[in-house]
């Protein structure tokens, strides 16, 4: 791959889609799209299109999975067959199973799991179109879906990735940058409590570079968090303004 002399950052210091190294892709979030689920959220981050839906807390099936002292969180990350260039088999792949676990563990610390024992929460994340950093966008959407379902939470969870391409540390990697770049560092954060719930690294970075990447990702998280809060409030604020004018 590295033989392919594609410059990921041009002479002006801009990336392939014209972004600065520390710039996020444009993000659009919508809430409550799925009326059948208890809570749902849809996120478009650049070319990423991801729908997250939450059911529960509800009776767990099969029943033997239920725990006597806390809720069970179940998560399914799934990519639609049409989400990537070449058709993806709809059967869950090794990667999807791993991401399901990673997303679940990133969200678990934010939920008061001991409030409703013997029940379960189901999170379904459906990637309709993928363009890099889908795990981060999935966490952002899933956390909003949990809040929409009225599940008691310590904080919202935001996630954002940083990485290194062409010897530059960049924010919010897209697919090409992820594949051709040197490293990718996804980070998930509970901003109010200042707790990191996910930190991974794929690639090679020096210690200084790693620190810089994490800090950049945290900056990105905080920007997305503001957006997340606005979306959550929007629905209620607009109704209030409409009727009270």
């Amino acid at each position, binding site marked *: 791959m590295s033989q392919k002399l594609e410059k990921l950052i041009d002479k002006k210091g801009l990336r392939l889609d014209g972004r600065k190294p520390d710039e996020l892709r444009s993000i659009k979030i919508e809430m409550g799209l799925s009326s059948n689920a208890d809570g749902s959220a849809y996120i478009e981050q650049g070319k990423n299109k991801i729908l997250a839906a939450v059911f529960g807390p509800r009776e767990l099936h099969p029943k033997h999975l239920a725990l006597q002292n806390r809720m069970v969180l179940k998560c399914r990350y799934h990519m639609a067959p049409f989400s990537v260039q070449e058709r993806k088999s709809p059967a869950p792949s090794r990667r999807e199973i791993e991401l399901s676990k990673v997303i679940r563990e990133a969200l678990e610390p934010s939920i008061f799991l001991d409030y409703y024992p013997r029940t379960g929460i189901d999170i379904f994340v459906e990637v309709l179109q993928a363009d890099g950093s889908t795990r981060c966008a999935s966490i952002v959407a899933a956390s909003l879906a949990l*809040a929409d379902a*009225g599940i008691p939470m310590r904080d919202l969870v935001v996630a954002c990735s940083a990485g290194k391409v062409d010897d530059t540390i960049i924010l919010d990697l897209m697919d090409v940058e992820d594949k051709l770049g040197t490293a990718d560092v996804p980070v998930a954060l509970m901003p109010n409590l200042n707790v990191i719930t996910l930190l991974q690294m794929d690639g090679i970075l020096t210690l200084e570079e790693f620190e810089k990447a994490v800090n950049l990702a945290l900056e990105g998280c905080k920007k997305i968090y503001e957006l997340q809060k606005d979306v*959550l409030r929007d629905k209620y604020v607009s109704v209030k303004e409409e009727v*009270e004018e």
Partner: protein
Amino acid sequence: MPTFFERKQLVTPGDLIAEGDYIAGENAYSENNKIYASRIGIVDYENKRVNVVALRAFYIPKAGDVVIGTVIEVGFSGWTLDINAPYLALLRASDVLSRPFKPQKDELSQVLDMGDLIVAKIAAYDRTHDPQLTVAEPGLGKITRGQIVKITPTKVRRVIGRKGSMISIIKQETGCQIILGLNGVILVTGKNVEDEELAVMAIRKIEEESHTSGLTDRITQMLREGKTKRSEIKE
């Protein structure tokens, strides 16, 4: 002891509401002497207690609550009901039948079958056992007619209104009987379908605009307009 939100302001999960000598009330939690919100909702202070009136939540059973449930399973000695809560509720056959219950003789599905709607009271509930229901009180039992509306359970209080003001307006204006299940399921029974639909519309409007002020007046206006419109169409 600063507070970071005023009364009636909107908060999202994780928002720091107050710091210092406060107690976390409904939908709030405290950590290191700081009070945070745990659900999206509206802030309310009650002396030292910080409450968040949730805009999105689900129903948690409480002994003594009247709820409306659907039969989802007919068992050997009773029924399992979906009461719109994280836990399924149990209704014992001996509670429904006035005579002694004999498993060999009685066919339970002839008394209550799958899909039947039931107004019931929660007899007992704790975190280690599923809630127990009872229908052995006047006004409780199988629903035979009317319409069902489902709303977010936390907004039932708003439908009732201050000292029942809201609910009595709807009853008065539409002439419908309304049974409020505290689990967010509401039964509306009227003389005709039009009356019921008007009441259902009003309840939906309350759910949507529960966090705004001057709602009672707007509902009254809506109901009156709805009635005049209907009489115009008839003429």
